């Protein structure tokens, strides 16, 4: 259950993104908060309202029932009173009929005078002869009671009584009042005459019932009405209007339900209907209460709820927007700064502020930017260095001194008719320069590099009048690999000028190339003078003292710049024994790093 709820809540941001295209943190937060809060408020509000309503309705039900019970009690007493009046004749007629009649007549007259609700009191014999009447004047002698339906039915049932529903009474001339009648058959045991059956009729108007039913209040518009089990209306506050068929009452419910409280909808309004059966009769008392008068259903309360709800929503919206703005502000700032970096401005530093996560982001971001800046500076420096050594190497390609001296040698040899030497020199020189330039490529095959070395050594051997011998030896498989150009010549140059040039015996320079440990190794071994230990120590570090030369450290630098720190030169030397220089480069076959400088071969 909770998992599902979690899933649901997690879905909200993605819904925001996809359905509503709301993507900023602030909007998603504000909307999500608002939405969830409104939903919660809504549910809580409705639940509370319904509980409130339910309680109110229950209260109204029970209080209405109490009221009805009270009215019922009063009504039953009233009817009981009527029964007692009509029962008076039992006592009176028990003894002497004639004096009894006289007494009863007086009692009836008094009752009629005192009680405004009693219209007439009459006593008939079983045959329908009028025995007693009150009021005494105005009786219509044409009136035949034994033609009345109720009389025909009732007289056969001893000791039974009947309440007639409202009708117009015709016993008296010039008077046609609406009455409700209590008709009773009484069997009296008279001492003299024996058993005699009499029928009494008590006619009541509605004043007393009206008073009883109007005396209670069932809300401003509520009322009580009375109905009999045949569906005939006994009493209703708007009786005439209903009789005129101008209005109707929902008697169906009252007739078919047992005593109790029910809710109904009638003519668009919700009402509480309370039913109570009245004793002595077959009547039912129905109380109607209009629900919309209850406090809870009162429109005013509804409007108040709505108002509070809307006010709450406004507050929630404002609060959400405000809070989400505050939270997302540092993030927005961070975003803006990052945009600057994106555009290339690395000289920024972000304020470390906001929530923890944002603070960390800012800190890390600052560090990152500094690092990038440093890396960029480093690259620039490296590129500078590379450029410089490239330039130097370039210079070496076209070393003027070497050229002059070689050309001098050629001229000298030519003047001395050493034509073979001339040819060799010229050819070698041509090869040398051709490979030096190598169409501007940085990388050349090891074969070419060896050719270059060979050409150089050939020229120098002749120039130094065979002061030394040289050998160039390479394993066949290594030839196809590539190398940085002009790495051998400077070493060999050193081997000649600082090595074998100054020794007495014949010098020897060996150039060997092979593959060791998956790397290419060049070895230049000379048996020259050697390098002093002090010089040897820092030989790869210093700048070349010799301006016209390139120098060991230069080559070393170039190789390291180009291939990385694990490659480069290794120099070993022993004074008076010789020097061995190792050049390590990687196995390189690919075309990487070929600089298309547009050089021409």
């Amino acid at each position, binding site marked *: 259950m909770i998992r599902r709820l979690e899933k649901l809540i997690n879905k909200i941001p993605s819904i925001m993104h996809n359905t509503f295209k709301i993507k900023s943190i602030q*909007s998603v937060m504000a909307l999500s908060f608002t939405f969830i809060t409104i939903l919660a408020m809504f549910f809580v509000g409705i639940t509370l309202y319904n509980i409130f309503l339910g309680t109110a309705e229950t209260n109204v039900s029970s209080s209405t029932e109490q009221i009805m019970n009270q009215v019922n009690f009063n009504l039953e007493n009233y009817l009981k009173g009527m029964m007692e009046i009509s029962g008076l004749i039992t006592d009176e007629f028990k003894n002497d009929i004639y004096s009894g009649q006289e007494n009863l007549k007086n009692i009836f007259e008094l009752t009629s005078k005192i009680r405004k609700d009693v219209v007439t009191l009459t006593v008939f014999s079983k045959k329908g002869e009028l025995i007693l009447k009150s009021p005494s004047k105005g009786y219509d002698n044409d009136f035949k009671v034994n033609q009345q339906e109720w009389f025909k039915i009732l007289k056969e049932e001893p000791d039974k009584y009947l309440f007639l529903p*409202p*009708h*117009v009474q*015709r016993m008296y*001339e*010039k008077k*046609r009042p*609406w009455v409700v009648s209590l008709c009773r058959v009484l069997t009296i045991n008279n001492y003299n005459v024996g058993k005699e059956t009499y029928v009494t009729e008590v006619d009541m108007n*509605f*004043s007393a019932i*009206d008073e009883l039913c109007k005396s209670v209040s069932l809300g401003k518009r509520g009322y009580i009405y009375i109905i009999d089990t045949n569906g005939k209306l006994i009493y209703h506050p*708007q*009786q*005439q*209007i209903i*009789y*005129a*068929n*101008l209005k109707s009452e929902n008697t169906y419910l009252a007739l078919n339900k047992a005593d109790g409280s029910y809710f109904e909808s009638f003519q668009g309004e919700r009402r509480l209907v309370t039913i109570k059966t009245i004793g002595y009769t077959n009547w039912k008392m129905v109380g109607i209460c209009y629900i919309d008068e209850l406090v809870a259903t009162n*429109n*005013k309360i509804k*409007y*108040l709820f*709505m*108002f509070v709800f*809307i*006010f709450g*929503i*406004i507050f929630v*919206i*404002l609060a959400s*927007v405000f809070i989400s703005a505050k939270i997302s502000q540092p993030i927005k700032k961070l975003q803006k700064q990052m945009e600057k970096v994106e555009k290339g401005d690395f000289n920024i530093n972000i304020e470390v502020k906001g929530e923890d996560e944002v603070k960390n982001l800012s800190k890390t971001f600052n560090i990152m930017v500094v690092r990038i800046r440093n890396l960029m500076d480093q690259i620039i420096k490296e590129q500078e260095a590379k450029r410089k050594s490239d330039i130097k190497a370039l210079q070496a390609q076209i070393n003027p001194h070497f050229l002059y001296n070689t050309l001098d040698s050629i001229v000298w040899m030519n003047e001395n008719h050493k034509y073979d030497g001339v040819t060799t020199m010229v050819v070698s020189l041509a090869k040398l320069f051709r490979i030096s330039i190598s169409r501007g490529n940085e990388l050349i095959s090891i074969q070419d590099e060896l050719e270059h070395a060979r050409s150089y050594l050939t020229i120098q051997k002749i120039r130094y009048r065979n002061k030394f011998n040289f050998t160039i030896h390479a394993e066949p498989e290594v030839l196809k690999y590539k190398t940085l150009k002009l790495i051998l010549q400077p070493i060999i140059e050193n081997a000649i000028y600082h090595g074998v040039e100054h020794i007495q015996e014949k010098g020897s320079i060996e150039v060997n190339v092979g593959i060791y440990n998956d790397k290419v190794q060049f070895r230049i071994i000379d048996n020259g003078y050697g390098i002093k230990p002090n010089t040897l120590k820092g030989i790869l570090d210093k700048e070349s003292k010799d301006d016209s030369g390139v120098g060991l450290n230069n080559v070393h630098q170039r190789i390291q710049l180009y291939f990385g720190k694990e490659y480069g030169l290794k120099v070993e030397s022993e004074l008076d024994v010789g020097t061995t220089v190792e050049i390590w480069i990687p196995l390189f076959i690919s075309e990487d790093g070929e600089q298309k400088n547009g050089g021409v071969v």
Partner: protein
Amino acid sequence: MKNVVRMTIVVGCIVFLIGCSVYIINRAIFDKETNKQTNILVVIKAIDLRMEFWDTVIAGIDAAAKEFDAKVEVTGSRTEKDIAEQIQILTNAIKSKPDAIILAADDYYALVPVVESIKKANIKLIIIDSGLNSDLPDSFIATDNVEAGKKAGERMSQLLQNDSKIAIISHVKGSSTAIEREQGVRKGLSKSLNDNIIGVYYSNAVQEKAYEIAKQLISENSDLKGIIGMNEASTVGAAMAIDDLGLREKVKLVGFDSSLSEVNFIEKDTIQATIVQKPFNMGYLSIKTAVQVLKGKKVSKKIDTGSELIIKENIYTEENQKLLFPFMHN
């Protein structure tokens, strides 16, 4: 730019919600007060206390006034013949500007100008019982008098043989009820009886006058076999004349309306039949319709409250009891 749009939406929502709440407060607080009481003036044909017909109309009006919470004032001319007085009452009424006027017209034509003035003053107007020659009133609530007259004529035809002489005692010449009922009676009478109408006489809705007319007619026309009374006063007056002359059932009397005395006369066979209207309904519906019109609801232009034929045998049926004997609690 996006931010501006968003802010606008948020502000817009808030303004909308504030608007809603203001509206709600308005409704909540001021709803009660808008239910002002309506003022309605009722001008009936005559303030003649003896006509039960108008008493019952007023009873219906009172019941409706209570139910619809309206303040009602009832007035009228002295007799049904005082047309000028009725016009004067109405002209004065326009000045006091009631919300609605309910009128039972004394005359079909004479009341038209003042009716036009009433409608010009934007007062709602409901006509009851007697119509007039105008389409301006908001509604006309009355008995279908032609139909009612027809019932009376038909009954008389059943009571008499052909070639019997009959007379009609009507009320006010020129009132629409008189005109229409006479029309109806002639429709309902058999051809021969129609030819034997000795005349139409006008009691001006005064019982004593009707009595005189009836007495005179009977004494002057010994072969007069039937009288038709067109309203309560005319019928009661004629009944009393017949009773006093001891000519019960010898001169058949068919009448209109149902006062208590008329019921008694029917029971005693002085009146053979009467056509009963529904004055309570007329009065009740007039107020109800007026209130509906004031609320702006649509109402029928014409409402027929109907009529019933009452004879001795059917007085005390459940339905007729309710019709003939208005139920008053006190």
